[in-house]
């Protein structure tokens, strides 16, 4: 069903291209993604079209950025043969809680450097002046550690050649959202970049990622009404204990 839906869109896009002057178009299949917590994650499905003459001298790049989050990173060190977490920490503010990049070809970072810094594309260019351009070696080291941590959790993804191109004009890309994906508004920026490193066109979409199911309701309950949640947890445990004792008294 989903596939059929996409095909129809592709056909519509293809016919539209013949008279449209838009050189870049992109859209998402579902703008409201609900992660069912009993299954493993979800996907963001992006498709679009690009003018085929331009595509020969250009690359497509898609960046998906989740809601901002502040991170604190601490290092572990060994003392008396025991591993201890350092008290000192380095804060990284307003970083994306989810960040994924996909491109149509392998991109030459030298050519695109200025554009990437300006547009804050790529992990190394996020809050560039604060994070990378500072000569703080420890900050850089911790920044790399944060990167590794997010990659391990599946919250930071790089996919070279992750965009599939059809007929030099239609493209699609898929991004995986793991179960622990943060909820909120995700911005999707699609860039058409010339081989000389200049931005030709840009397209923005946004989607809302939410979770559904009992787990998500419990999470919201615990965060928004902590005290009530506490009483609920205690009460539920007492009822469960009561039930258990009644059941086994009869066996």
């Amino acid at each position, binding site marked *: 069903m989903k596939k059929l839906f996409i095909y129809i869109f592709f056909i519509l896009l293809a016919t539209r291209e013949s008279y449209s002057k838009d050189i870049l178009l992109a859209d998402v299949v579902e703008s409201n993604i609900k992660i069912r*917590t*009993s299954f*493993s994650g979800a996907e963001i499905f992006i498709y679009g079209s690009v003018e085929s003459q331009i595509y020969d001298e250009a690359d497509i790049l898609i960046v998906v950025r989740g809601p901002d989050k502040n*991170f*604190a*990173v*601490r*290092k*572990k060190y060994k003392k008396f*043969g*025991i*591993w*201890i*977490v350092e*008290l000192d*920490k380095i804060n990284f503010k307003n970083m994306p809680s989810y960040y994924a990049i996909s491109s149509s070809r392998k991109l030459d970072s030298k050519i695109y450097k200025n554009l990437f810094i300006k547009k804050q594309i790529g992990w190394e260019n996020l809050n560039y002046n604060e994070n990378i351009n500072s000569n703080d070696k420890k900050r850089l080291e*911790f920044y790399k*550690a*944060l990167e*590794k*941590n997010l990659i*391990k959790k599946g919250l930071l993804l790089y996919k070279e050649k992750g965009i599939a191109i059809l007929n030099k004009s239609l493209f699609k890309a898929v991004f995986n959202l793991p*179960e*622990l994906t943060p909820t909120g508004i995700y911005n999707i920026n699609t860039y058409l970049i010339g081989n000389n490193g200049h931005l030709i066109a840009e397209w923005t979409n946004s989607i809302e990622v939410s979770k559904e199911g*009992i*787990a*998500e309701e*419990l*999470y919201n309950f*615990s*965060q928004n009404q*902590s*005290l009530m*949640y*506490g*009483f*609920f*947890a*205690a009460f*539920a*445990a*007492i009822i*469960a*204990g*009561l039930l*258990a*004792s009644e*059941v*086994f008294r009869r*066996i």
Partner: protein
Amino acid sequence: MEVYLPIAGIPVDIFILLFLGLSVGFLSGMFGVGGGFLMTPLLILMGIPPAVAVASEANHILAASFSGLLAHIRRFNVDFKMGLILLLGGILGSAIGVFILKELLSIGQERFFITVSYIFVLTSVGLWMLIESISSIQKKYKGKRKRLHEHIWMHGLPLKVRFRKSHLYISVIPPIIIGLLVGILSSIMGVGGGFVLVPAMIYIIGMPTQVVVGTSLLQIVFVTAVSTVLHSYVNQTVDVMLSSLLLVGAVIGAQIGTRVMVRLSGEQIRFFLAVIILLVAFVLIGELIVTPKDMYYVG
């Protein structure tokens, strides 16, 4: 089949949780202990954040001990007056523990602190039980008997109260202090504290064995209830999904364990329990010494 734990923030295999609940429940039924001191370290080793493991286990223990408490109330095995005195300290201790954990969370030291607390408590309790059980097994062979009642320093303390059910006339200060310490221990480590409370009630307060378990369950039920509410309110670390899945396994495991228990003598039970406790402590020491896979802590 995977289930996502909303507060812990990680997906886990539901059957692993059920199996864990079942095995710890089995041991707790067999040895007559709550099992929190085994469950919490195992949850941490599974990858659940220590603060969440501790708080959710407190919630799980509340459920497990409540059914136990009911059984003891039916048999009139609870000294409510003593329980109330213990609770004065216990509830205060639980609150102190929750706030200590809050401070530790804010400086990223909770994992280290919880692990070290476990190593310390498990090693001392484990060794003590091991020595005690071995020596009483030996005494049994030699046919010697223990003295019934000894007079120690605490019998000189003021504020004496009569506890009819326990046949005691003692100061309320030791029970309050014991309650307080066990309360702190309970909310920091996610244990009921029975493995400390029961020996303390027998050897320090001098209560008769038949009311000890019921009265300690009374303390455990109230302290873990307070811990559950405060952990939720202050630290948002109680994972109901986790605690209820553990409970399903534990309830069944405990029933099986209780039926196996009869075949072992008291000393043998204490000996095996000591070995298990020391084993867990050993694994935790390993956790501290082994070079971590990730050299950084991200919060």
